[in-house]
């Protein structure tokens, strides 16, 4: 178990290091490009929505960073096994090692991006509160969900090779359907609009975003995320019981 994590972590760090090896700023390029994206969308949409920059930009920055982390991980988890073809053909590892590698890699990227938040909050004078700490349990619940989703998507993508592109298009659409750039009260019915209340990405996003913006995540979001985690984990457990030894054949 410990060995599995050590290898996952080692490969993840290597992945990240190598993708930025030949650039001077390294993974901080991630930080810069996210900052530019937030600044641009922030200026344009706060003008369009006629909302106060000091309200809109912290909201946007928090939303975008968390949403990018979640969807970025989900997208890359499709490739967790496919990418490791060389290893899977030669050696046996616990399949979770490959999902762990993807998760750790994305967490490291997220950590670099996260540097933007305190800057935005300080510059725009957001109030700090102890309630913000509730983002931590919220984030853990998100991770539990990402863990089973990653296991699901990596396996489905391995068996059905047209899944990753299909999933990619769904995620692109989901970005516009989820209140990331816009506020949920801008659609009729607000959070009870099915577009939002049935959107798992919204609930996962809220678990972390709301506390950071000084609100509590709604009870609905907690329940939705917790139930999703429980059912999903059970489904994936059964799925892996049945199919994990097929991974080497499907690769």
């Amino acid at each position, binding site marked *: 178990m410990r060995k599995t994590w050590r290898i996952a972590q080692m490969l993840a760090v290597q992945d990240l290091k190598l993708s930025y090896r030949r650039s001077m700023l390294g993974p901080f390029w991630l930080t810069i490009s996210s900052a530019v994206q937030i600044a641009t969308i922030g200026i344009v949409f706060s003008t369009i929505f006629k909302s106060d920059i000091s309200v809109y930009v912290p909201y946007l920055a928090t939303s975008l960073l968390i949403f990018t982390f979640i969807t970025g991980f989900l997208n890359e988890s499709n490739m967790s096994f496919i990418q490791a073809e060389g290893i899977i053909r030669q*050696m046996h590892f616990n399949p979770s090692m490959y999902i762990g590698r993807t998760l750790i890699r994305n967490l490291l990227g997220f950590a670099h991006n996260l540097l933007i938040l305190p800057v935005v909050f300080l510059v725009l004078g957001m109030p700090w509160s102890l309630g913000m700490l509730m983002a931590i349990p919220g984030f853990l619940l998100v991770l539990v969900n990402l863990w089973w989703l990653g296991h699901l998507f990596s396996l489905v993508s391995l068996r059905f090779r047209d899944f990753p592109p299909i999933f990619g298009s769904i995620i692109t659409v989901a970005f516009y359907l989820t209140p990331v750039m816009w506020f949920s009260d801008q659609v009729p019915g607000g959070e009870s609009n099915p577009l939002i209340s049935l959107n798992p990405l919204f609930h996962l996003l809220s678990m972390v975003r709301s506390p950071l913006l000084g609100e509590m995540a709604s009870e609905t979001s907690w329940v939705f995320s917790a139930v999703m985690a429980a059912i999903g984990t059970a489904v994936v457990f059964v799925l892996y019981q049945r199919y994990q030894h097929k991974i080497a054949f499907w690769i």
Partner: protein
Amino acid sequence: MTHITLDKVCLDFPVYNADARSLKSSLVNVATGGQLRAGNKGGITVRALDDISVTIEPGERVGLVGHNGSGKSSLLRVLNGVYRPSSGTIGIDGEIGSLIDINIGINPEATGLENITTCAALMGIPKRRIAETLPDIIDFSELGNYISMPVRTYSSGMQMRLMFSIATTMKPQILLMDEWLSVGDESFVKKAEERLGKLVSETDILVFASHSRETITSTCNRLIWLEHGRVKADGDVRTVADAYFGPENPT
């Protein structure tokens, strides 16, 4: 005690065509009752190993012979856990080291040093042992200052020497090898032979697939001849080698 037991082991490979790997086609199939596209549901399987029952005791140096596709590599991959048998049982006592493909996990962008750490960990060589033998690996590979250069700048001979040096630091109880590792470089051959010979002599069990009569007769004390995934002959080297390669010409 180090020990390998295979009891009636069969291995079936599912063979997928492009259609069976497509989620879209599979869904269309479900919708149309699976009758329209004959032959892609259930799919074809190839029996790579058929009813193999073998027991290997410590001290045995088992050579595997047989034509290409006879199941030698499949058997090695069943032994190291990559493939789970479709039926039959397999019992292994002892730590397995696999030299089936020594290029496992090599990353051309990473430096030689970085590759030593990751590749060795993937091969299951303990961290402490890597740290202890690091100077020896660097020295043995004759890479000098190139060790801190990315592996993509290496010649194929240099890469070979690096991977050979890493792989041969393992100290497994059971060693699996697909063909004798040959290291092209003239000056390197002799000391490589010695090092590999030492590794082989220190293991309790060797399972070794090869096409070369000379290497097999000089290394092994038992020979298994596979044909179409079945054991065609199993016995002492001389008898089986004579049956498989033809009687040795005493001239």
